[in-house]
Structures are given as structure tokens and as C-alpha cells.
């Protein structure tokens, strides 16, 4: 398949293109003055709560790089697409970014489904791709860098911590999709490894809002702690109904997903919940304090999550690699990133793991307290052990799939 012969007739195509993407084609006249970078994040629809802050941090990172003189003597031009929480638009915008805008890199995707929609496309069109969301792990593809944490990195630290604190009998509730399913398996594995027992695991579709029956089932099971991997707006109801039943005073909660929920729930509902992420707003470093201040102030985002902070790290990791490679050529940049690229920012130090194209990152255990998370303990430079068990891009550079990680319990 050759797309190049069509360039000859681009003028005609621009006319047709104007119908579906009017505002863009005028800017193309001066395209060579910029290095174009695309962000594809849902800023409307059900996922906008994350998408908006990811767009903000991406904008911040790009502005910082431009203020410091840009890259290779050029300014970065950021093109944002809003796929409206609809997979179909990911396909369309990724194709547009790669083939029409010819961007140097695409950052984006929130759900795993959206990542898997655009990953093969961007590989086909030879466009570098950064996915900055914590996810279930297992993606093995040399064209993508996954900067978010995976369950093994966070669950491994969280489970022993809360078991030591609260007890050995665990009840798991998780969102019913790949991420929740795999997280639940890791919870089970680490609980057993630490001499405990998961008495029950319940899965909830992402639109369930009524947790009454479950709360009663949990009471009947009498666990020492509840491990939550609930996700999304509907599932916030669980924390409310849990507190309304007075259960938050009875059985403690731990989670690897309770993040932005801290803004939406009240202190009575969330105080005491213990979480583990690769980033928490309460990280006590000057870099993070400045970062949080800018995001709150200039961008009006009330609370920063790992997704948005890792997006910020991701953009900087890419920019540093471009400088090092002295080129935006995809293979050269990948080479520079694989050569142990590392960035220290608000989330601490993030290092690219060449074998998996995931990151070695700092993990923080924190406690929700009055709409914030206090850092209780931090673990520096945790390797992506789960993906590493199935993926070795040094050995198999042509690998191109998401492995299902077999969690041995």
C-alpha cells in the first residue's frame, strides 16, 4: 500500500479535507517552522475528568520546553484532539495526526481500549506513541512507551503495608474490566504471599451505582480490610454508601484506584483510605509543590493524579530524548529513550526500561486526609516486573501485542 503517490494531488485533497477538519489546513502553510506533537485525550464524555487534566499538564510541559528555547531550534506545536470518550474517534484522530499533521509523537489514550485502538495504527504509520496512564500491563511493542504504573508495581507495596496494619483477611471489590480483573489477581497473589487470604472478590460493571447488597455481603464476610479497585464516576457511590452505613468506622479500605475521588467525596467519607500510586499530590518536594501550584492556579484543575503527572513526565522524557538524538526521527528517538532515558520531576524519578518500554518509577503509599493524600511511605525505582515477565523487546524487537499476564498465585 503506498500512500505517497497521493501527495502529488494534495491541493485537491485539502479541499476535501476542509469539509471534515476545516480549521487545520490553513496552518499547514507554515508547518515546517514547528515540531508538531499531538495529544488525544477525552475532554468530554465520561472520561473528561482525567482528560482535562492530562491536556493541562501536556500544555504546561510544551510551554516549558518552548520557553526554554524549544527543540532543535524549533517551537513545539501542540495539537489537541477530543475523542469525546468514543473509541471510534481515537481511530480517526490518530490517523489524522499521523498522516495529515505528521506529528513527531502522539501522547494519549486513557482506557486500554483506546490505547489498543490507536497503537496498531501509529505503528503502521511509523509515529511514536506515549501512553501515560496506569493500566493492567503486558503491552509489548517497540513503538510505544507506557509511562504509567502497572498493578505489580503498586499492589506489591500496598498489600503488605495494609495487611501489617489491619489484618490478613481481605475482601476485594473491583471494576469489571481487564484492569480490575488483573489487579484483583495481583491482590490475591500478594495477599497469599504475605500469609493472608482473600475471602471474596466481587466485580462491578463500570456503571453500577447501587452498592447496597454488596455492602451487606461484605459485612457478612467480616474481612479485616477491603481492597478496592473500583473505577470511574459511578463507582464513587460505593464510598458514599459505605460511609453512610457507618462501615468506614468498622472496616478499613485500601485502593490502587482511589485518586481523583478524593475531590468529589467528603472528608468523612474518605479519611483513612490508604492508596498506592506512582504520584500523589502530597509529595513533599519543591518541584512538586511548584508543579501543583501552577496546575491548581493557572489551569484551575483541583487535584492532580498519576495520569496527568505521568503525561507531564512523558512529554519531558520525549523532549529530552529528541535533544539527545538531535533529531525527531522516530528510530533515533526510540534509541535515545532505550539508552536509559530518565526524567526527574514532580513524581520523582522516572526511568525508561529498555526491555519493556515501561518505566521504572517511584511508588508512594498515601492516606486520604481532608481532600488530600499524605504520603506515608515511598519506594524508589520500582521495576515493571509484571510486563517484564512476558515482554523482552531487546530479544524480540518485532513483538507487537498486549500479553495477558498470567498471575501465579
Amino acid at each position: 500500500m503506498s500512500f505517497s503517490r497521493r501527495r502529488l494531488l494534495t491541493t485537491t485533497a485539502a479541499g476535501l479535507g476542509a469539509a471534515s477538519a476545516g480549521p487545520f489546513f490553513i496552518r499547514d502553510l507554515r508547518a515546517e517552522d514547528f515540531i508538531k506533537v499531538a495529544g488525544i485525550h477525552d475532554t468530554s464524555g465520561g472520561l473528561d475528568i482525567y482528560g482535562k487534566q492530562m491536556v493541562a499538564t501536556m500544555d504546561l510541559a510544551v510551554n516549558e520546553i518552548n520557553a526554554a528555547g524549544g527543540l532543535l531550534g524549533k517551537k513545539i506545536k501542540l495539537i489537541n484532539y477530543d475523542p469525546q470518550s468514543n473509541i471510534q474517534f481515537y481511530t480517526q484522530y490518530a490517523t489524522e495526526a499521523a498522516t495529515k499533521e505528521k506529528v513527531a509523537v502522539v501522547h494519549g489514550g486513557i482506557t486500554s481500549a483506546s490505547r489498543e485502538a490507536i497503537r496498531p495504527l501509529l505503528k503502521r504509520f511509523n509515529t511514536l506513541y506515549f501512553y501515560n496512564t496506569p493500566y493492567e500491563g503486558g503491552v509489548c511493542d517497540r513503538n510505544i512507551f507506557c509511562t504509567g504504573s502497572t498493578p505489580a508495581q503498586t499492589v506489591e507495596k500496598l498489600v503488605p503495608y495494609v495487611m501489617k496494619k489491619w489484618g490478613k483477611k481481605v475482601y476485594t471489590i473491583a471494576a469489571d474490566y481487564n484492569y480490575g480483573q488483573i489487579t484483583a489477581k495481583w491482590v490475591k497473589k500478594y495477599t497469599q504471599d504475605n500469609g493472608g487470604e482473600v475471602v471474596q472478590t466481587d466485580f462491578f460493571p463500570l456503571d453500577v451505582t447501587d452498592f447496597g447488597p454488596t455492602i451487606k455481603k461484605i459485612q457478612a464476610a467480616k474481612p479485616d480490610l477491603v481492597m478496592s479497585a473500583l473505577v470511574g464516576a459511578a463507582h464513587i457511590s460505593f464510598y458514599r454508601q459505605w460511609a453512610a452505613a457507618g462501615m468506614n468506622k468498622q472496616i478499613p479500605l485500601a485502593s490502587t484506584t482511589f485518586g481523583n475521588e478524593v475531590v468529589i467525596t467528603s472528608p468523612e467519607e474518605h479519611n483513612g483510605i490508604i492508596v498506592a500510586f506512582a504520584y500523589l499530590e502530597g509529595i513533599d518536594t519543591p518541584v512538586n509543590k511548584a508543579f501543583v501550584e501552577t496546575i491548581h492556579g493557572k489551569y484551575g484543575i483541583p487535584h492532580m493524579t498519576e495520569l496527568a503527572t505521568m503525561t507531564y513526565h512523558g512529554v519531558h522524557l520525549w523532549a529530552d530524548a529528541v535533544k539527545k538524538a538531535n533529531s525527531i526521527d522516530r528510530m533515533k528517538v526510540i534509541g535515545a529513550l532505550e539508552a536509559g532515558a530518565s526524567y526527574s520531576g514532580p513524581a520523582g524519578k522516572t526511568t525508561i526500561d529498555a526491555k519493556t518500554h515501561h518505566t521504572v518509577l517511584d511508588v508512594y503509599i498515601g492516606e486520604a486526609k481532608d481532600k488530600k493524600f499524605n504520603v506515608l511511605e515511598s519506594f524508589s525505582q520500582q521495576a515493571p516486573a509484571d510486563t517484564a515477565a512476558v515482554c523482552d523487546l531487546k530479544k524480540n524487537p518485532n513483538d507487537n501485542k498486549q500479553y495477558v499476564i498470567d498471575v501465579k498465585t
Partner: protein
Amino acid sequence: MDYVIILALQICSAVASLVLISLGLAVIFGMMRVINLAHGEFLMLGGYAAITAFNKGVNLWLAMLVVAPLTVGLFGVVVERLVIRHLYGRLIDTMLATWGLSLAMIGFVTVVFGNTVSGISAPLGSLTIGAYRTGAYEVFLIFVALVLLAAGWSVLRYTRLGLIARGTMQNAGMAAALGVSPSLVYAVTFGIGAALSGLVGGLLAPLSGVVPTIGAAYIAKAFITVISGGAAILSGTAIASGLLGTINTAATFAFTPVIGEVALLIAAVILLRILPQGITGRFFRRAL
């Protein structure tokens, strides 16, 4: 024994919650043969009204019980005048228009409030039943559902408004015969239906929180409950809620929440196949 009580309570709670989320829709459907697909967003708006008022310093109960229904009721009257009025007798068109309205409301609320509005905690604390605890507020909602049904029944049975309403349910021309303009009856009905939705939206906010898209979680269930119930506003809704709520909860306890949900949906499909006009289309035809 405790477990049986708690199970029974949970079933009551599920039934009450179906009654609550369906009632506003049922009033509008029963009286006007209008399916308001923006019903979920009316509930959402009630939640936002209550929370906004509360955050502005209004007493929580006042915010939920007065501000929410008033706001949404007024909004309903405006919607009726601007949109619904032009579409009477065109069931499908009203469904489409109210659906457009629902999308627009989601968009509008997102633009105005964003999507990180803090919720309010449920008041009243918790109850202890043997070894179990449950939210006192959930029990309060069961009580509210009963009160609303009883109040609705009394109004329909004993007041002049109820007489007019019953007349209109039987025959749209009846209101005119009673010397009341049907246009006024419709505006008032839609307003009352909307106010009920607002009230319920306000009451549910402490349990479900508010996000612009929360309406989607309610509308399908409310729609299915009302249509399964049939034309009689109160008894239809109550019976359908009782049946579907019990099936849902029993299946959730026995299996998983998904199976509970699917059991509810399958029950509704079978019900409609057996009784194509809904429960009260066949039985209890003269009920309210």
C-alpha cells in the same frame, strides 16, 4: 435472623429506589402520554440544585426537600412551554425532543459546573441490626417512597386537582369539560412531574453523588419500570417496582450485580410480552 432482616430491608430499599426514580416519569407518562427521556437529567439537575444550595450555606434538608424540587419544577414548566407543548400527541417526537434536551443538559451542566463537584455526605448516621449496619438514610428513603405514594394517592383521590387529573388520564377532553384549560393541566402536570424528579434527584445526591452523566444510570430503569407498570401512575409504578426490584436484589444477592441487572431486564421483557400494555393495562385497570 439478622441476615434475613437485612435482606428484607435491602429488597425494600431496592423497590423504594425504583419507585423514587420512576415516579416523576410515571406522572408525566400517565397523565400526558409523554415519555420524558430527559428524566435522568431532571434527577441530575435536582442533585446539582441541592448540592449547590447546600454549598452556598442552605440547610441540607431545605436544599434537598425544597430547593431541588422547586428549581427542577420551574425548569420543567419552562421546558413544557418551550418544547413539549408543540409536540402533544406525537409520542415519538416528544421522546426525541426530550432526548435532545437530555444531551443538551449534560453538556450545559458540564460546561457550567465542570465534573468535579464535591458531593454531600448522607445525613442521619447508621443503624445497627444485630451484627449488621446499614445507612439510616437508606431507611429514610424507603419511608419517603411510601409517603410520596400515599400523598399521590390522596391527592388523586380526594382533591379537585386529583379529579381533574383522573379525568385527563381517562380522556384528554375531560379537563375542558370541567372548565379547566387542558394546556394549563399539562403545564402543571409536567411541572409536578419535574418537581418530583428534582426532589428525588436531591434526595439521592448524598448516596450517588453528582456528575453530569449520572442520568444515564437512571433513565433506562425508570423507563422500563414505568412502561412495565402501565397507565396507572401510582399502582403501576409501585407494582412494577416491587416486582423488578425484588428480582434484581434477589439475583444480586444470589449471584452478582450483573446477573441482578440482567434478571431485571429479562423480567421486564417477558412481562411486556405477556402484558403488552403493562401490568395495569391488563389488571387493576381502574386503579390510580
